[in-house]
C-alpha cells in the first residue's frame, strides 16, 4: 500500500508541476470566468423577458376574460421559466420553442426567439467547457503517461522493482483524475461564486444537488478520456504515435460523432410535415368529425333538445380531433429527437451532454416537464370554468359551446394562473442515471482494454 501511495504522490507531483498543467489550468480558468460573466448577463436578460411576458399574460387574461364564456378562447402565452442551472447545462434551450400558447382546449408551440444562435454548437455553460476543454486536458495529461516512462527507461526500472503493473496503472489513472479534478473543483467554485455575486441565486439546495450530480457525471466523463489517453499511450509507437492517435480519437469523439445523427432526422420515420400542413390536417380532422354526423339532426336550438346536445358533443369531439393532430405531431417530434439522441450516444461526449442536461432538468426534459404541467393547468382551468358556470343558474351547462354556457361576468382575479414547478430530485436523478450508466459502461470497457493492453505491454 505504501508503494502505491508513493507512486500516486510521485505521479501527482509530476503532473501538477508540469508545463501542460499550468497552460491548461490558465486556459480553463480564464474561459470559465468569461463564460460565467457572459452567462449572468444573458440570464438577467432572459429573466427580464420572462417576467414581463408573465405580467403581460396575466393582464391579458384578466382583461379579455370579461365574461365567463370568453375564458374558453382566451389565449395565454406561457413561457418556460429561465433557470439558473442553465449555467451548468444549457441543453440548447435557446434554440427550442420558448413555451406554449395555451387556451382552455388546446396548446400551440411558441417558436424560439428569432435570432436564436448563429449556428452555434453549444452555449457558454459548464458542460461545454468540460465536454471540450477538460476532455482535451485529460488526454494531453495522459497521452504519454506510459510511453514516456518507457522512453525514459523508468518503466523498466519500476516494474523490475516488483511494482505490480496493476498498481502502476492505477496510480497513473488516479493521479490523472486528481490532476484534472483540481482545476475542475477550483473552476466550479469560482464560477458559482461569480454567478451568485451577480444576483443569481445559485447556492440553494436544488442547485447544489444539480452541482453534485454534475460533478459525478463529469468525473465519469473525464475518467473515460483519461483511460483513453492511457490506452493510446500503450497503443501507439512511442509518444508521437500515441499523440496522433489521441488527437484523432478526441476529434472523432468530441467534434465529429456528436454531429453524426443529425441527418437521420430526414428519414421517413422521423419526418414531420411543416407547420402549415399540420394546421391544414388538423382542420380536416375536425371537419371529418362533423361529416361523420352529416345525416343526423345536429342543429343547435333550445338547450334541452337532443339535437343541441349532439351538436355540442360533436363540436367537442371535433375540437379534440383537431388538438389530437397537433399533439400527435408534437409527440412525434419529441420522440424523433429522443431516438436520435439515443443514436448519438455512441459518442461519450453526447452521453455526457445529455446526462448533465437531464441532471439539471434543462433542454428537452424541461420542455416535457413544462408541457405536462401546462396540461395539468388546463385541467385546473376547466375545473374552475365549470365551477363558475355551475354558480350561474341560467346557464344550460353545455360545455364548451359558447352559446350554452354562462355569459355572466365573474371575479376574474380568481382565475388560476400558471406557475412552473421545478423538477423533483428523483426525476432528475432517474433521467440522468440512464446516461450515467452509459458513461460507466464506456469506462468499464475502456478500463478493461487498457488493463489487458498494459498487461501484455512490452516495456523494453
Amino acid at each position: 500500500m505504501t508503494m502505491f501511495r508513493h507512486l500516486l504522490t510521485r505521479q501527482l507531483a509530476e503532473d501538477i508541476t508540469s508545463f501542460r498543467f499550468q497552460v491548461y489550468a490558465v486556459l480553463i480558468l480564464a474561459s470559465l470566468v468569461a463564460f460565467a460573466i457572459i452567462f449572468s448577463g444573458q440570464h438577467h436578460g432572459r429573466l427580464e423577458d420572462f417576467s414581463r411576458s408573465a405580467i403581460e399574460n396575466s393582464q391579458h387574461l384578466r382583461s379579455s376574460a370579461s365574461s365567463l364564456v370568453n375564458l374558453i378562447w382566451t389565449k395565454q402565452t406561457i413561457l418556460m421559466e429561465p433557470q439558473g442551472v442553465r449555467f451548468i447545462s444549457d441543453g440548447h434551450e435557446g434554440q427550442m420553442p420558448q413555451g406554449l400558447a395555451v387556451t382552455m382546449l388546446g396548446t400551440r408551440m411558441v417558436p424560439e426567439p428569432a435570432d436564436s444562435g448563429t449556428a452555434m454548437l453549444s452555449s457558454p455553460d459548464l458542460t461545454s467547457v468540460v465536454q471540450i476543454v477538460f476532455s482535451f486536458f485529460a488526454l494531453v495529461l495522459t497521452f504519454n503517461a506510459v510511453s514516456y516512462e518507457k522512453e525514459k527507461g523508468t518503466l523498466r526500472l519500476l516494474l523490475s522493482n516488483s511494482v505490480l503493473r496493476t498498481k502502476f496503472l492505477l496510480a497513473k489513472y488516479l493521479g490523472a483524475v486528481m490532476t484534472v479534478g483540481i482545476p475542475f473543483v477550483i473552476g466550479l467554485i469560482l464560477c458559482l461564486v461569480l454567478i451568485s455575486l451577480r444576483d443569481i441565486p445559485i447556492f440553494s439546495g436544488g442547485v447544489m444537488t444539480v452541482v453534485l450530480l454534475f460533478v459525478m457525471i463529469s468525473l465519469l466523463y473525464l475518467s473515460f478520456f483519461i483511460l483513453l489517453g492511457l490506452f493510446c499511450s500503450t497503443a501507439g509507437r512511442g509518444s508521437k504515435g500515441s499523440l496522433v492517435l489521441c488527437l484523432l480519437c478526441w476529434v472523432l469523439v468530441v467534434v465529429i460523432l456528436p454531429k453524426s445523427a443529425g441527418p437521420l432526422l430526414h428519414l421517413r420515420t422521423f419526418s414531420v410535415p411543416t407547420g402549415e400542413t399540420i394546421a391544414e390536417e388538423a382542420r380536416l380532422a375536425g371537419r371529418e368529425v362533423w361529416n361523420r354526423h352529416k345525416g343526423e339532426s345536429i342543429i343547435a336550438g333550445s338547450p334541452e333538445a337532443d339535437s343541441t346536445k349532439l351538436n355540442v358533443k360533436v363540436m367537442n369531439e371535433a375540437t379534440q380531433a383537431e388538438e389530437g393532430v397537433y399533439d400527435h405531431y408534437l409527440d412525434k417530434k419529441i420522440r424523433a429527437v429522443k431516438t436520435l439522441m439515443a443514436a448519438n450516444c455512441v459518442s461519450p461526449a453526447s452521453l455526457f451532454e445529455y446526462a448533465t442536461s437531464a441532471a439539471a432538468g434543462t433542454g428537452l426534459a424541461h420542455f416535457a416537464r413544462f408541457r405536462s404541467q401546462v396540461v395539468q393547468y388546463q385541467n385546473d382551468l376547466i375545473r374552475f370554468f365549470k365551477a363558475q358556470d355551475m354558480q350561474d343558474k341560467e346557464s344550460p351547462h353545455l360545455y364548451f359551446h359558447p352559446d350554452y354556457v354562462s355569459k355572466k361576468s365573474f371575479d376574474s382575479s380568481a382565475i388560476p394562473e400558471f406557475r412552473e414547478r421545478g423538477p423533483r430530485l428523483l426525476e432528475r436523478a432517474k433521467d440522468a442515471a440512464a446516461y450515467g450508466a452509459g458513461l460507466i459502461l464506456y469506462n468499464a470497457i475502456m478500463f478493461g482494454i487498457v488493463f489487458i493492453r498494459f498487461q501484455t505491454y512490452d516495456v523494453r
Partner: protein
Amino acid sequence: MIRTLIRREFLDNLLSFKFIACVLVAIVLTAISTVILADNYRDRLDDYSKGMASAREALSKVPAYSFLAVNIYEKPSTLSIFAPGIESKSGSFVTLTHREIPSFLKGGLKKNEFASIFSFFDLSSIVIGIFSILAILLAYGSISGEKESGVLSLALSNAVPRAEFLVGKYLGGIISLAVAVLCCFLGGSLILLFSKSVALEAGFFLSFLLIYLFSLLYLSSVLLLGILVSSLTKSSFQSLIVILAFYLAAVFLLPLAINSAADGASTRKARNYDRNIDALLNERSASLERATLGIPVKRTWAFMKWDTQTDTVILGRLNPPETIAHYESLFERTEKLKEEYALRIHTLREEDVRVREKIDRVRNAVLTLLPPSCFVRAAELEAGTGREAQHRFFQQVNAYWHQYVRYLDEKNAFSLSYAYPYPRELPASDKVLVDEIQRVFAEKKGPLWASPAFGEIGKRNKKHEQEIRPLDLGDMPAFVYRRDEFAQRLRAWFVNVLVLAGDNLLLFALAYFAFARYDPRMEI
C-alpha cells in the same frame, strides 16, 4: 539546396503515420458528409421545384385579388453541400401579400422545432477539425523537434542558411497539406459529379477552387503559428502543448464567447423592437377599426366567405346592393391602410436590422481575427449561404414588394373586385330572391334562415362560386432572384482573405525572427 529541403520535408510528412491517418479519416468523413449533405440538398431542391410549381399553379387559380399571395422560393445553392452556413437550417420560402413585407423564411426542411440540437459536420468543419490538427502535428516539431534529434545543428553547420531552412520547412509542410486537402476536395467533388440529379451550376468549380484556396490560406497560418511556437520553445513537447491550447481557444472557446456575447447584445436590442412592433400592430388594428366605423353603413345581411387567418374574403354574388356599396369603399380604405402599415412595420424592422447589423459587424470584425472563423466566413460568403446572402434575398424581396404593390394599384385591385369577382348587375331571377330576403330582413319576422329564400340564395351563391373565372395575372411582375455576381462576392470576402494573408505574413515574419535567434544546440 532549398529544393532538397522541401523534398525531404514533403516526403517525410507524406510517409508519416500522422499524415496517413489524418488524411484517411478526413477522406472517409468527407465522403460521408458529401453523400449526406448532397442528399439533403436534393431534398431541398425537390422542395424548391415542387414549391415553385405549386406557386405557379396557385397564381393561375386566384379568384379575386383578396386571395392573391405570392410564394417566393429561395433556390438552394449547390455549394451549401460544402459550406452549409445557415441555409439548410432556415426555411425555404416567403409569402408576399400587400399586407406584409416578408421578414422571415417559412417552411423548409427544418420542420422539427427541437432539431437544432443536432448539427452535421461539413467540409469546413473537417478542415478545421482534422486538417488543423494535421497542420499542428506537422509544425510543432519543425524547429524544436529537429533540435532534439540533432538534425538542426547538423543542417545549420552544413551551411544551410536559416532562412532557407525555415522556408523549406514551411513549404514542405504547406505542400503536404495542399495535397491532403486536395484529396478531400477532389473526393467530395467526384462524389457530386457521379451522383445523379445534382446538376452543378456554372461557376461551381470556381467557387470550389476558391474555398480550397481559402482553406489552404487558413492552414498555412496554423502551420506558421506552429513553426513560430516551435522556435520559441525549448522542446517539441512544450510547443505542442502551447499550440493545442491556441487551437482550443481559437476554434471553440473564443468563438463561443464572442458569439454568445454578441447574441446577448442583439437580443437586448430586439426586445425594444418587439415592443415597438407590438405597439404598431395595436395601432394598426385600431385604425382599421376606425376606418371601418368611419363609413356610415346601413346594417344589412351579407353573404361572404371570410377567412380571418389569411385575411381573404369573397363576397357572395347575391348580396343586396347596400352591402356591395359598403364594401366598395371599405376595401379601398382598409387595404391601403394595411399596405401603409406593412411599410411602416418594415421600416421599423429595417431599423432593427440595422442595429443588429452593427452588432454583427463588430462580431465579425472580432471573429475575423481568429483564423478559423475567418476561413469559415470567407467560405460562406463565397458560397452565398451565410446570413449576408439571406439578408440580400430579403432586400430583393422588399424591392419586389414595391413593384407588386404598384401593379395592384395599376390594376385598381382594391376596388370592389378585390373580393367580388362578379358583374355588378344582378340577373332578374336572382334579383327577385334578393328582394324577397331584403323584405324578410326589414320586417324582422322571425329568424332570417327560416325563410326558404335564404336557403335558395345560399345554394345559388355556391354555384356562382364555381363559375368564377380566375384572374389573369400574366402581366404581373415576376420575382427573379439574382445571386451575387463574382465581383460582389469578391468584395464580400476580400477583407477576410486579406486578414488571413496578413496573419500569414505576420506569423512568418515573427517565426523568422524567432528562428534567427534560436539556439540550435542540443541540451545535454
